[in-house]
């Protein structure tokens, strides 16, 4: 039988790992854009806040933050709902996992986007203003597409790190592909084999994402010629 009958569960675990990574990526992406905006902002307070966020988060291990936020998020939320005389809102592990991972990797994305925004030549923005585009149009049509070209290698790196970091969510009780393989290994007495299966799943995911990211990089560097040596 397919993987001793654990095939379905391994597939379900893999699906959860992918869902978790993609959702966290979305959260981290948005936080990264906002954070980068904060870091290049001229407002001193906003800039200090953004710097504090990236320094603190990037200085502390992701697993420590994961446990810290995961255990404290619910308690903090309970305080808030108590103060407002509302019913308790229960966070399921998936939601807190996504929010936590997104919040952590948002700091790394902030740094990536900050560097990329600064790499877009200033003349491009001036040209946009000269054409009478609004702030939003300049951001969306001029800065964003060019910024992505510079940001993609960093995004690719962050994504691979984040994908591998999702293995840690089994520690906070999510049934991802690692947890499924631990359970399958224990009950079938083939721990080594099933851990190898989990490793294989991750290797497959990182390989596939590398292919996709290479394609994206090609798309966004349209019109750029590499130096021929």
């Amino acid at each position: 039988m397919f993987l001793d009958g654990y095939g379905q569960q391994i597939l379900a675990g893999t699906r959860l790992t992918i869902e978790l990574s993609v959702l966290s990526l979305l959260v981290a992406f948005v936080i990264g854009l906002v954070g980068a905006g904060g870091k290049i902002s001229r407002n001193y307070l906003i800039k200090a806040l953004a710097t504090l966020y990236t320094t603190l988060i990037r200085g502390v291990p992701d697993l420590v933050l994961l446990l810290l936020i995961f255990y404290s998020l619910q308690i903090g939320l309970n305080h808030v709902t108590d103060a407002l005389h509302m019913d308790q809102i229960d966070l399921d592990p998936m939601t807190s996992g996504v929010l936590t991972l997104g919040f952590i990797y948002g700091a790394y994305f902030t740094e990536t986007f900050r560097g990329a925004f600064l790499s877009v030549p200033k003349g491009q923005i001036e040209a946009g203003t000269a054409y009478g585009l609004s702030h939003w149009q300049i951001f969306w049509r001029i800065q964003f597409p060019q910024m992505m070209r510079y940001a993609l290698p960093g995004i690719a790196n962050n994504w691979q790190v984040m994908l591998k970091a999702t293995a840690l969510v089994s520690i906070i009780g999510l049934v991802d592909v690692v947890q499924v393989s631990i359970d399958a290994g224990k009950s079938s007495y083939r721990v080594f084999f099933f851990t190898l299966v989990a490793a294989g799943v991750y290797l497959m995911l990182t390989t596939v994402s590398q292919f996709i990211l290479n394609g994206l990089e090609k798309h966004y560097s349209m019109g750029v010629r590499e130096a021929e040596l």
Partner: protein
Amino acid sequence: MNDIIQQFWQAFLWSDGYHFTGVAITLWLLVVSIGFGFVMSVPLAIARVSRNKFVSWPVWVYTYVFRGTPLYVQLLLFYSGLYSLDVVRNHELLNVFFRDGMNCTLLSFALNTGAYTTEIFAGAIKATPHGEIEAARAYGMSRFTLYRCVILPSALRRALPAYSNEVILMLHATTVAFTATVPDILKVARDANSATYDSFNAFGLAALLYLCITFVLVALFRRAERRLLVHLRPIQA
């Protein structure tokens, strides 16, 4: 907060009264795995850039597999995976080695950081200016002398910024050690958490300790970079 500090400060820093714990163990994990990783990765990086496919390909496979899978899974593989095999348990020496969580942790950490470091060094070796190598060849240097006197000193220095990044990521990665019963900072924090149910302060204290170690490492590497990369600094007008 005070309860936790009063009860656990010693365990957080170096000892729970019986064994080394906390910061001491975390630093030990870091130093040993980085040390082994470094020693491994220099020859592997040279093999990685070799033009001989039979030499470079196995190294590529090693780095690809170890960089493509999470460290936590690798630790599980070495800690609970290998020890479940009869071959390992029936072999006297292997049995003694893999029974100890610390050994498995150090082995998996060293192999993991070795893979990343190999790629960093290989990249730096490949980026060595062609003229330097040509000059060394013109002086009649043998291959060994070329690597010892020209390529490695310059490549290892240029790799320093990326290498410092890897060391800090490794510090952050040591946190998974507690899953193999190694009593590092996070293990103490978890004990403090289950003793007091004060999650925020227990894990917050651990986060603070890690933050301090990170800052110290960053400062040390910044000094090293200033010293060792003097020749690459832009000339100030």
